[in-house]
């Protein structure tokens, strides 16, 4: 079983190996996807074993996996697989068009696989100090992905991300210290070596005041990585500037890893402090995030920022569900983690395709997606309804569970507020997306960069030459590139790549649909066991 746990974390490194060997994007991507598929297989096998046996402990408490870690491993490996599959056509197309150099492509996959491995490893450790080390390291690896394109905007986003997240995680380390300090009555000699299960089992002996401060600092610190408001400010920039498959990893894997860290602290806090204090903390941050997320979604603009604010909102929903507590609330929170991860991965991957096709990330620049690219448009529309909580997709089921948990707690104020905010989010999000998928595609020769500028500004030579060769009219006339209304050029080299781009979208949507209609008995057991861990 220990071998299985280690393999789960290490198999995504296949991408790093291929990148170091110097292969081209498609080859590295395939190796990455194969590694991720192997990791998913290991995670499922591990989960099956964990649901029947006591938690796995080893390596002096550094390795620890219970049903909760197994469930998060399943989520993160699924996202990694989908994002790796999506990287093959996306990064391949950027390599073909020369937007990314071969060095950048190798850099991308190296950091992608390091990022995945570090996140998976942080889900498998029982030592809260090592948890900090691995989460901070995953911040560094993913910051390199955000800054990959090397433009001023992406570097700025990467800077904002790395500095805010590092500060946040350092504060979480201070929180971790206070939690360990609260245990100094337990084990005088080396209280920092205490593994998490030991702390939980002896929670009754922890000093409450120190634990209270430690829990608050941990929620603020790891909450920065989760994107809980008001520490979310790095999130929209980083998600908008990263390559789309990397955005999917950030939104669907990294945020959940942060949430996992908070859950570990929550379990200890619940056991010692009772429900009231942790509940108040989580409900405050949760509702703040939902409000911020929903309000900023109303604004139109960059569609990747829209998805990012939706992530803020969903992380808020999960925090609120953890705050509602009880078996129902915890069950709903975990189910929401998985459903949101799948839906957001499909959204970000399809947004990558859209930005390759339309050469823009502004929602206003995209129309008629359904007629220009029916598969992508359809996937975007379906994933939109899935993430907004329409039946028959999984998110509907988990949000329903969360609202029920809220009503079960007594006061109807919180669940009603939650429902109202979900309504605002639904309206804001759907308004932008429907405008993108309906209507007629824009009239332009798709691949020419910034065609509008031709008549207004003197262009650099290379660009002007490219425009002149695609459109036979002389450069300098405003109508030069406005051709007849026709389908936008496919960004991919051949048919295989086009099909490859659709594969992860379809896989993700099918999984969401299945989760909405039927929760497999095994998954149900795991969710109940995980909820019992949190208490």
């Amino acid at each position, binding site marked *: 079983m220990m071998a299985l746990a280690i393999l789960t974390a290490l198999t995504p490194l296949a991408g790093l190996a291929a990148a170091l060997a110097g292969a081209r994007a498609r080859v590295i991507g395939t190796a990455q996807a194969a590694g991720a598929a192997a990791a998913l297989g290991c995670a499922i096998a591990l989960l099956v074993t964990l649901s029947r046996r006591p938690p796995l402990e080893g390596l002096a408490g550094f390795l620890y996996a219970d049903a909760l870690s197994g469930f998060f491993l399943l989520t993160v490996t699924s996202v990694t697989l989908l994002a790796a599959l999506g990287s093959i056509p996306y990064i391949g197309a950027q390599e073909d068009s020369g937007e990314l150099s071969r060095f950048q492509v190798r850099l991308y996959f190296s950091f992608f696989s390091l990022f995945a491995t570090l996140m998976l490893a942080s889900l498998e450790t029982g030592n809260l100090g090592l948890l900090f080390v691995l989460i*901070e390291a995953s911040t560094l690896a993913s*910051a390199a992905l955000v800054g990959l394109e090397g433009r001023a905007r992406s*570097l700025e986003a990467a800077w904002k991300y790395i500095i805010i997240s590092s500060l946040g995680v350092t504060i979480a380390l201070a929180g971790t210290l206070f939690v360990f300090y609260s245990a100094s009555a337990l084990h*005088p000699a*080396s209280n*920092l070596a205490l593994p998490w299960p030991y702390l939980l089992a002896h929670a009754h002996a922890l000093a409450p*005041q120190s634990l209270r401060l430690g829990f608050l600092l941990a929620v603020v610190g790891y909450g920065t990585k989760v994107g809980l408001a008001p520490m979310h400010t790095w999130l929209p920039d980083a998600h908008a500037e990263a390559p789309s498959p990397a955005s999917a990893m950030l939104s669907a894997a990294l945020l959940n890893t942060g949430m996992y860290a908070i859950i570990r602290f929550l379990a200890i806090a619940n056991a010692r402090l009772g429900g009231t204090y942790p509940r108040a903390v989580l409900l405050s941050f949760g509702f703040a995030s939902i409000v911020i997320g929903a309000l900023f979604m109303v604004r139109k603009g960059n569609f990747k920022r829209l998805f990012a604010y939706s992530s803020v909102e969903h992380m808020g929903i999960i925090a609120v569900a953890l705050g509602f507590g009880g078996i129902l609330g915890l069950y709903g929170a975990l189910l929401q983690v998985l459903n949101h991860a799948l839906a957001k991965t499909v959204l970000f991957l399809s947004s990558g395709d859209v930005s390759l096709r339309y050469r823009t990330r502004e929602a206003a620049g995209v129309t008629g997606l359904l007629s220009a690219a029916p598969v992508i448009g359809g996937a975007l529309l379906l994933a939109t309804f899935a993430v907004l909580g329409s039946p028959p997709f999984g998110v509907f089921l988990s949000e329903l569970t969360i609202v029920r948990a809220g009503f079960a707690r007594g006061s109807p104020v919180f669940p009603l507020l939650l429902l109202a905010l979900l309504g605002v989010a639904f309206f804001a999000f759907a308004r932008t997306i429907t405008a993108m998928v309906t209507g007629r595609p824009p009239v332009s020769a798709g691949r020419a960069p910034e065609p509008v500028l031709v008549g207004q500004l003197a262009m650099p030579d290379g660009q002007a030459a490219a425009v002149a060769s695609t459109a036979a009219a002389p450069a300098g006339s405003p109508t030069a590139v406005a051709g007849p209304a026709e389908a936008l050029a496919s960004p991919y080299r051949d048919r295989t790549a086009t099909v490859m781009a659709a594969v992860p979208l379809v896989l993700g949507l099918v999984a969401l649909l299945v989760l909405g209609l039927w929760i497999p008995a095994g998954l149900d057991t795991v969710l109940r066991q995980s909820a019992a861990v949190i208490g």
Partner: protein
Amino acid sequence: MQYLSQSSTAGVLLDLSGAVILLLAFACLASKLFNRYVAYYGAQSVVLAFAAGTSAVAFHSTELWVLAALTLAIKGIAIPVAARRVLVARLALKRDAAMSTGLSTSLVAGGALTAFAYLVTRPALLPHGSAAAAVVPLSTAVILLGALAMVVRRHTVAQLIGWLIVENGVFLGAITLVATFPFIVEAGIFLDIVAGVLIMIVFVSGLTRQLAQASAAELRELRG
């Protein structure tokens, strides 16, 4: 728990180091020259290494000795030297003009945060008369001052130094509050800091180059 009492020699030395570290954080907050930021950070790390050494003697811990040596080598020497050579000298950084508040305002805010740190960590949280009770408020204040420096300065290098000061504050709390993490974890923390500083240096250089190009382009557009 083996408490380090406040009146023991080690306790007094730790208390003193904590106070000096706090003063150096204030000095950083009050300064306007990039050279000084780096110098104050280096000095702070050297004092921190001394504090770790004191703690090592008091707890009879070899791991703390290794930690003190690592602190001196990495935070006290390597990072300041690298920051000075690669950032301050190569990018020709002199005066930091990008501040969102005046110096006096940020110093007053720093004083308020220090008082707040005492307010939060003092009452009943820590055993009375222990060295930790004296040092933890200081280290909390250092953390808050570092964060304040990151907020009021908009220049990337200043923010980087701010983060490193926060890190020092956490470390100061760690060596007095509790014994130590297992060595793997401590080594991991150091590795994270080094990798973080390296990646940040790459970003800072990239951003500065881009900004230089952008402003050069502006100059060309405005011509004639």
